[in-house]
């Protein structure tokens, strides 16, 4: 909001220079974003918080300045004006909905001459960024910015039967507002109507039909108080935001209705000529009241640490227009808030003060609100800066520490951390197999969590998998010329609850994606392409870093992964937690990927909850290990896991370990076969094994493997 420094000084004669004043206002909570020179004036751009609509005018800011500098606010003075006849002779006001319109005042000025405003008025309005229209319209705007009360001027002749009826709009009722737009209204919207039709959208904008024009002779000046919620609703639904609605929807000063109207009428008579009615028709069926708020002075220190003497508390609050309960009668402010004073006033007790907030303050309800007022005007900068005594030890969530280790392990494998939006395009529905934890959910049709009001076109799904985002990131990198991409992400994934009306399921997921070269381009070593085992290794490192027992990988068929290059991942206890593999051709084609892309996703919630590996020392053997290697020619479909399991099943007493040395496939081997070399380790706990003993055990195992897998021993 723009405030003119000169205009402000007419209301509160500050001794502060514009920039100094800006600094002080900022420290009072009226954040001045900028100070701009405008001719012989300065304009302060104030960013007000939503609880202070009272400061949406020069008068409002002047009150803060007055309290700051111990000044008195001088209300603007108007020249004496000609008056004649009662308003009732020209018009009438009827409020049909007092909830939405607690107060409505109408006053008439007859015989005005609509013309351009005088220079000083145009200049004032232009300084604060307002456009001049004509004298009467400009005056209502002027008084709005001066006193904070939105006003509206009707051409009295254009009102059917010259009557004002404040009512809700009728079903299907239409109104063309001043901006020339025809608006369809609903029955909850409040309108100002005449005997026949709606003529203004209450608190938002006037109607075109009753607008002031050069032909206007008699004007009806409206000054009212509208229900904030009602105005907010109307403005929101119609997508309108006006100077008037901006104030009404936050709450205006209902005690200011007549005063602002008087000021407006006086200026109209002065600048546009005309004779005002002696009175206003002021319909105010249920007078509004301000709450009484008590304050224990010691609460100021308890909440802020500031020691403020009672007398100073009184000075600050009364300076801001608060009335202390046992001194209400002595309050003499010219623009008194008497209207809002409740009839029953409590007497102040010894240790407790009670205050009535001024009618322009909509934000004062409880003791803490008063504490803030006192602290604001004492100065937040006077509050000490100290650390609280601590009897509590800080702690990371155990899961956070595991996640940190996991991230480091994945980083060491060359993966960069990605962060994607939590909402994804619905176009990916059904393309990916969800994690086992969501397997049940994914069978239901309504398994996805969807947004009813997304902001990015198409992005209506809360992601049930992290892969959609990561593959989008891969595509982004490809499009920008980066072909070596390794990314990982952790984050929530969502599925709707099995029973309707319950909060959606949230789990944490870890996903990895890898594609392109496996080595840095500028480093030594022959470049090679990333493969399945690079990704698997990263995942294994992650599990090891979280101190888990080794993950298990079993051949599997998964919707989004390529047959034959896919594994299901399980915890050591057999619980399935995710999938790894090469992206299926159909999915890759959908993303227009031309190179192999490997992806993995595992249930991080499960990983975090999985049993930790416990470390127990195993005594070091005094006897040597004897190793024997065996190379077997087997069918390609025989897996390493098959072979190792067969060795374990044989349960040869002193065979301690069987592990892979290497595999080989090549032109010199028969089609469909490969060679697998295993290393078997033999050791006894109580003696050194003799060669003949080892040979015997080893032959037993080799024979079994030969038989079981139709394997040929290679020499």
């Amino acid at each position, binding site marked *: 909001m723009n405030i003119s420094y000169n205009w402000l000084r007419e209301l509160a004669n500050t001794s502060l220079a514009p920039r100094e004043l800006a600094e002080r206002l900022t420290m009072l909570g009226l954040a001045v974003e900028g100070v701009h020179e405008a001719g012989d004036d300065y304009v302060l751009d104030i960013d007000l918080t939503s609880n202070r609509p009272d400061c949406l005018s020069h008068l409002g800011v002047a009150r803060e300045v007055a309290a700051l500098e111990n000044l008195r606010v001088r209300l603007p003075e108007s020249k004496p004006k000609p008056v004649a006849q009662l308003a009732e002779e020209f018009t009438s006001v009827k409020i049909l909905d007092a909830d939405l319109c607690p107060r409505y005042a109408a006053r008439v000025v007859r015989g005005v001459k609509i013309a351009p405003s005088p220079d000083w008025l145009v200049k004032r309005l232009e300084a604060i960024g307002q456009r001049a229209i004509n004298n009467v319209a400009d005056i209502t705007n002027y008084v709005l910015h001066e006193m904070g009360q939105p006003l509206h001027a009707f051409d009295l002749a254009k009102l059917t039967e010259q009557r004002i009826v404040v009512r809700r709009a009728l079903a299907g009722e239409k109104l063309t507002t001043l901006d020339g737009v025809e608006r369809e209204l609903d029955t909850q919207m409040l309108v100002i109507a005449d005997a026949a039709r709606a003529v203004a959208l209450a608190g938002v904008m006037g109607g075109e039909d009753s607008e002031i024009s050069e032909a206007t002779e008699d004007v009806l000046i409206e000054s009212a108080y509208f229900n904030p919620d009602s105005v907010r609703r109307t403005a929101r639904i119609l997508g309108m935001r006006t100077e008037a609605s901006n104030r009404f929807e936050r709450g205006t000063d209902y005690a200011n209705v007549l005063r602002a109207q008087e000021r407006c009428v006086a200026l109209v008579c002065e600048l546009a000529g005309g004779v005002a009615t002696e009175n206003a028709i002021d319909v105010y069926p249920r007078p509004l009241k301000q709450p009484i708020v008590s304050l224990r002075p010691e609460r100021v220190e308890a909440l802020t640490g500031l020691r403020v003497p009672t007398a100073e508390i009184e000075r600050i609050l009364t300076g801001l227009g608060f009335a202390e309960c046992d001194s209400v009668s002595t309050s003499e402010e010219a623009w008194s808030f008497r209207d809002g004073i409740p009839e029953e006033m409590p007497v102040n007790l010894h240790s407790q003060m009670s205050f009535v907030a001024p009618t322009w303050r909509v934000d004062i309800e409880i003791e803490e609100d008063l504490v803030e007022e006192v602290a604001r005007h004492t100065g937040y900068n006077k*509050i000490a800066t100290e650390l*609280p005594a601590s009897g*509590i030890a800080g702690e990371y969530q155990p899961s956070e520490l595991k996640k940190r280790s996991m991230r480091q392990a994945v980083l060491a494998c060359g993966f960069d951390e990605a962060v994607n939006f939590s909402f994804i395009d619905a176009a990916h529905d059904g393309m990916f197999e969800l994690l086992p934890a969501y397997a049940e959910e994914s069978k239901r049709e309504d398994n996805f969590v969807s947004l009813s009001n997304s902001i990015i076109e198409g992005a209506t799904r809360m992601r049930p998998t992290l892969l959609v985002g990561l593959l989008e990131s891969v595509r982004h990198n490809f499009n920008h010329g980066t072909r070596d991409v390794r990314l990982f992400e952790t984050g929530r994934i969502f599925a709707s609850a099995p029973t309707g009306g319950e909060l959606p399921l949230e789990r944490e997921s870890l996903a990895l994606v890898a594609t392109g070269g496996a080595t840095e381009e500028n480093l*030594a070593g022959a470049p090679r392409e990333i493969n399945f085992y690079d990704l698997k290794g990263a995942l294994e490192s992650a599990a090891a870093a979280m101190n888990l027992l080794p993950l298990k990988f079993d051949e599997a068929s998964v919707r989004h992964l390529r047959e034959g290059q896919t594994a299901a991942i399980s915890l050591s206890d057999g619980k399935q937690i995710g999938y790894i593999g090469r992206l299926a051709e159909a999915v890759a084609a959908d993303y227009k990927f031309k190179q192999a892309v490997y992806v993995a996703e595992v249930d991080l919630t499960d990983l975090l909850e999985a049993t930790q590996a416990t470390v127990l020392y195993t005594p070091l053997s005094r006897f040597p290990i004897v190793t024997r290697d065996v190379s077997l020619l087997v069918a390609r479909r025989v897996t390493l896991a098959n072979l190792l399991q067969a060795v374990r099943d044989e349960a040869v007493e002193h065979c301690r370990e069987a592990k892979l040395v290497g595999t080989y496939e090549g032109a010199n081997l028969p089609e469909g076969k490969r060679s697998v070399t295993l290393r078997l380790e033999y050791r006894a706990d109580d003696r050194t094994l003799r060669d003949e003993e080892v040979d015997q055990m080893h032959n037993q195992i080799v024979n079994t493997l030969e038989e079981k897998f139709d394997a040929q021993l290679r020499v």
Partner: protein
Amino acid sequence: MPEGQTVDHKQTVEAARKAFEQEFGRFARFRGSNNLDGLTLVEAEAAQRELVDARTRHTGKKSALASVKKLIGRVAAEDRADFGQQVQQLETEIVASLEEAEATLKEFISVARTERERIDVTLPGTRPRRGHLHPITLLRQRIEDIFVSLGYAIEDDREIETDYYNFDALNIPEGHPARASQDTFYTTEGFALRSQTSTVQIHAMERRTAPLRMIAPGRVFRRDTPDATHNPMFFQVEGLCVDRGITMAHLKGTLSEFVHRLFGPEIKTRFRPSYFPFTEPSAEMDYSCFKCGGKGCRTCKGSGWIELGGCGMVHPNVLRAVSIDPEIFSGFAFGFGLDRMAALMYKLDDIRLLFENDVRFLEQFN
């Protein structure tokens, strides 16, 4: 024994010497001479091998020297000492020649090999490519470390919430402007994507009750169209300290300490009144610009101050909502955005970069 035989023996010694010198001639350049220009490592290594043979031939069992030595016993007794001396001298000469040549070659080969094996130490080191943490994670971890050291626990909770946790419990009643649905994402079932991490305050107070200190870093969602300074999803850190006797002085002290640890002890802080439904009194905290030190620059838009975020004393309605008596306990809460802080720290001019996951971008953070 005939006289003439002694002479013969002497001639034998001379013959042996001649034979050696004749063959050794091609190795002579390695004797005491430093003029090895043009010698290649391959030639030197060949010569070294030949020298080994030469040594065997000239000093071995079948060598002329060995034959001569055998004659010593057969020489007349009176000549024996003299002859023995001659043989001795021959042997010394031969061995010295060989050793000298061997030493020269060894030295040459050693130098040449060192040179041949010289490497370019300025070539890049061999190391696996290391990935990079996302800048938001880097910042979040630093902030977590600071607050844990100040006695805070790290908390987190749901991202999809009921209106109760997202609004009501935070003293944002129905009809409050902050509740307008144009700012909050809703699921089709009517749940809200949390629009601030303050929701975690409520869960944490319900779980732990007072006294407590916690921070909750996490994702929040607001219906902003993405542009250079807005994203519909961003990260916040919420903080809460509830105990007996907590005042705004403690709020100022805690946030000042935090800013000093994050940006340095020279950073100044400023608290000014503000408004939030869940705190009263409320404040906005600014810290002096870490780029210009408060003089005013592009980072701080010329003001010298950068806004950290909102804070204040926990509203009594919020405490009551979690059954904490505001007459016994008081507390402060604060919240700030990580994305904007990261943008300022790293001079990002477009925060959409944060969620594009361009490897060229991510690689810049460590």
